[in-house]
Every structure is written in C-alpha cells, then in structure tokens.
C-alpha cells in the first residue's frame, strides 16, 4: 500500500536527528513535526521569523501576531526567539539550518526541483523555497510519486520552471525512499506492500535498484 500523507510525514520524521535545526515547508512537511522521534531535541525554524516553533494553539488562544510560514497560528516554546526576515534568510543562507524538508511537483535525477509555478495555470510564487534550496546543506523532499494521470514526477529532467538546481538529497514519496546521487535516484526503501516493479514502472528518471530493497517500517 502506498503511503498516505501521514505515512510520508512519519517516514521523514525518522530522518530528523537530535540537536538539529529544521525548516519545514508547507503541506506534508508541516506534519513531520507531529511524528518526531521521542527523546530528541529539535528546533524548528519558520522562515517568517521564528526559531523554536511550538504546536498549534489551543482553541481560543490563537494570536494573530504569531504565525508560521504557512500563515497558520502557532505557539512558542521555552527558548524561542523572533527575528526579522533578513536575519531569517541570513541564517538559512549561512547554512545554520541543518535540514530542510519541502514539497515538490517534480524532481530530476540530478536533484533539480520544481515546485513554484505551472506556466499559464498556477503561479503562487516561490516564497522562501528558492532561498532554502539554494542554501541548505541537506534537503529532503516530500512528494507524490506520480501525478493524477499516473505520470512519474521523478524525471530525467524537470519540465516545470525550476526552483533550484542539483540540491535535493533525498525523496520520500508515497512509493518509497530515494537517495539522489550523482548516478541518479537510488531506491533505498519500498513503502509497505509496494513492489520494486511498481516503483520501477512509476519512475521515469534514472533509477538504481540495489539487490536488496527493504520494506519500510514505520
């Protein structure tokens, strides 16, 4: 069974290590915060100007001045700190943020990513994504493996306007986990019940399949 959004978020959460500063994009990446391993200490950076993002507020306690990059009401935690947008992207560019998790419409076998524009159809803008992918040391993408018509979104080259070049390190899709290497996508884990064959057929970019591909344990 392919992973649902929560499954993808849970799997990505296992990549987060103790002591990391992490930036979570809008959508599935935001869910990752709910499934972080027990006992580790992680600081979430929200690029609109907060380090130490806490959970959503209790009903009735929301504060219009306190939101995350997805414009959702949030809370602080002990040790949180606010700053302006220039410093926020300053720390991103200076690679002080250890891990960036964001969504994608397409990823190429060279690690290019497209997630901000569909010409003639949708132009919401890149927000902070271009800054994040151009700067981050470690980028994990959360995405659907195929579009609704069944076409692979892991491609030899992106067809949509790029967000960044050669930057994605790892992909967790509904079908599996993939490292992005100089040789192409490397299949690291299969989603529960998903066969190697299904993944091969669903992947248009160059895919390297090791002899033994373990099934994911969530």
């Amino acid at each position: 069974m392919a992973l649902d959004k929560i499954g993808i978020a849970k799997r990505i959460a296992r990549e987060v290590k103790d002591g990391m500063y992490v930036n979570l994009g809008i959508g599935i990446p935001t869910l990752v915060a709910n499934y972080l391993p027990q006992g580790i200490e992680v600081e979430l950076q929200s690029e609109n100007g907060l380090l130490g993002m806490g959970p959503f507020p209790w009903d009735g306690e929301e504060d219009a001045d306190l939101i995350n990059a997805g414009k959702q009401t949030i809370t602080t935690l002990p040790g949180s700190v606010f700053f302006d947008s220039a410093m926020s992207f300053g720390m991103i560019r200076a690679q002080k943020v250890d891990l960036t998790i964001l969504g994608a419409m397409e990823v190429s076998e060279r690690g290019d990513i497209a997630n901000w524009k569909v010409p003639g159809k949708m132009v919401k803008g890149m927000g902070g994504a271009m800054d994040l992918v151009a700067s981050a040391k470690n980028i994990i993408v959360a995405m659907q493996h195929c579009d609704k018509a069944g076409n692979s979104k892991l491609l030899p080259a992106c067809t949509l306007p790029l967000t960044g070049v050669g930057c994605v390190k790892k992909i967790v899709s509904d079908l599996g986990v993939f490292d992005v290497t100089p040789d192409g996508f490397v299949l690291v884990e299969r989603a529960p019940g998903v066969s190697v064959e299904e993944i091969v057929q669903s992947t248009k970019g160059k895919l390297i399949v090791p002899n033994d591909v373990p099934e994911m344990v969530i």
Partner: protein
Amino acid sequence: MPIHKVVSNAEEACKDIQSNMTLMVGGFGLCGIPENCISELVRKNITGLTCISNNAGVDDFGLGLLLQGRQVKKMISSYVGENAEFERQMLSGELEVELVPQGTLATRCMAAGYGMPAIYTPAGVGTEVALGKEVRNFNGKDYLMEFAFDSDFALVKAWKGDHKGNLIFRATSRNFNPLMAMAGKITIAEVEELVEPGTLDPDHIHLPGIYVHRIFQGVNYEKRIEQRTVRTRS
C-alpha cells in the same frame, strides 16, 4: 530629517503619497500589515501603484483591497497564493507581477537601509529568476547579484513606538517591517501604542527612530487571521 515625527492619523501621514509611486508595505500574509495606511490608500483612491510586499493580502483584506480597486499596476512579491482576484488580474495581464525569492526580497530591503547598492545571493541561480542577472562565482558557488530596492514610501506596522520613531515589533509580526522601515525614502510607521520617549527600553528597540519619518497611533486594528489552526481540547 526632522526628529519631530508624530502625526495624528493615516490621512496626515499619507498626505503626499500619489498615484504611480512605489510603496513598500510591511507584513507577512495578513500578519503585521499597516491596516490604517492601506485603508487610507483605498480612500484616496490613487492608482498606478507599484507595491513591494511579500504577499498581496487576501481578496477582501490587506493589499487585496487595493487590488480590488485596480489601484495597483505592479506587485513585487514572493508569494501571491490565496488571492483569487490577484490571480485573475495577473493571468489576464491587467496586473504586472515580479516574483522575487523571499530572502532576496528581505535582503534587498536591508541593503537599501544599510546603504549597500547590491547583494549576492544563491537564491534563484539556474532558474528563471536569474534571467538577465549577473551571476558571479565566489569560493566555487554561484550567486546572483540583486539590487537594493528603491521606494518612495515605506508603510510599516509596529506594536509600540515612541515620539522619536523608535519601534518595537511583536512576535512574527516583525517580519519585513523593520527592513522596509529602513529602506523607504519616507517611512511611515503606524503603531498600536504610541508612547513618550524614555518609555521603551533602549535595549529592546528593534528599529531605531532615525529610519522613521512619520509615526502615528493606529485605530481599529482587525488583525485578521489567515489560517486559524488550533488544537481542540479533548
């Protein structure tokens, strides 16, 4: 620049903002936007504006109000989702839009406020954002040269301010506000609470008053929430 900066309201503060000017407008989404100044621009009904602002508000609030009235000629923003009228005007070609990576937008404001004519950022290298821009390699990595913004007015919102223009922001409503305040040729700050000099701790002030030309205490803040997201008590 006069140190005597206090004006009575948005109308007085915005009296010489005219059609076809370039305005910076603080805020992220609807968080920390200068509500009073935006209302005044609607009332004045000036047009042909170029707005530098991270977002374009929503259909019926924030900069969306200016879009509804066709007062905006060009938006320079990083993210314009959640605004149907905006998308319609943009796709139909009525509205000119320049999309700028969020960190680039912030840093181009800061550059203006810090007297730096240009900055280098890796954001957008290899993408359509890089078209026509100078690419330069430092230490093996490519960067785009981006220019400091030039704006006639900056309209910003702070939590507290004093008569000398010193500003304190609250939580994530800080965002672009201090940066745009630094960048405006004329900077107008509206605050929830205007206090006497000496009231604010000099170590707590986020934006020194030297950057602020006019300040007033705003009224009737709605502070609308764009995405109310809560946990419900079980």
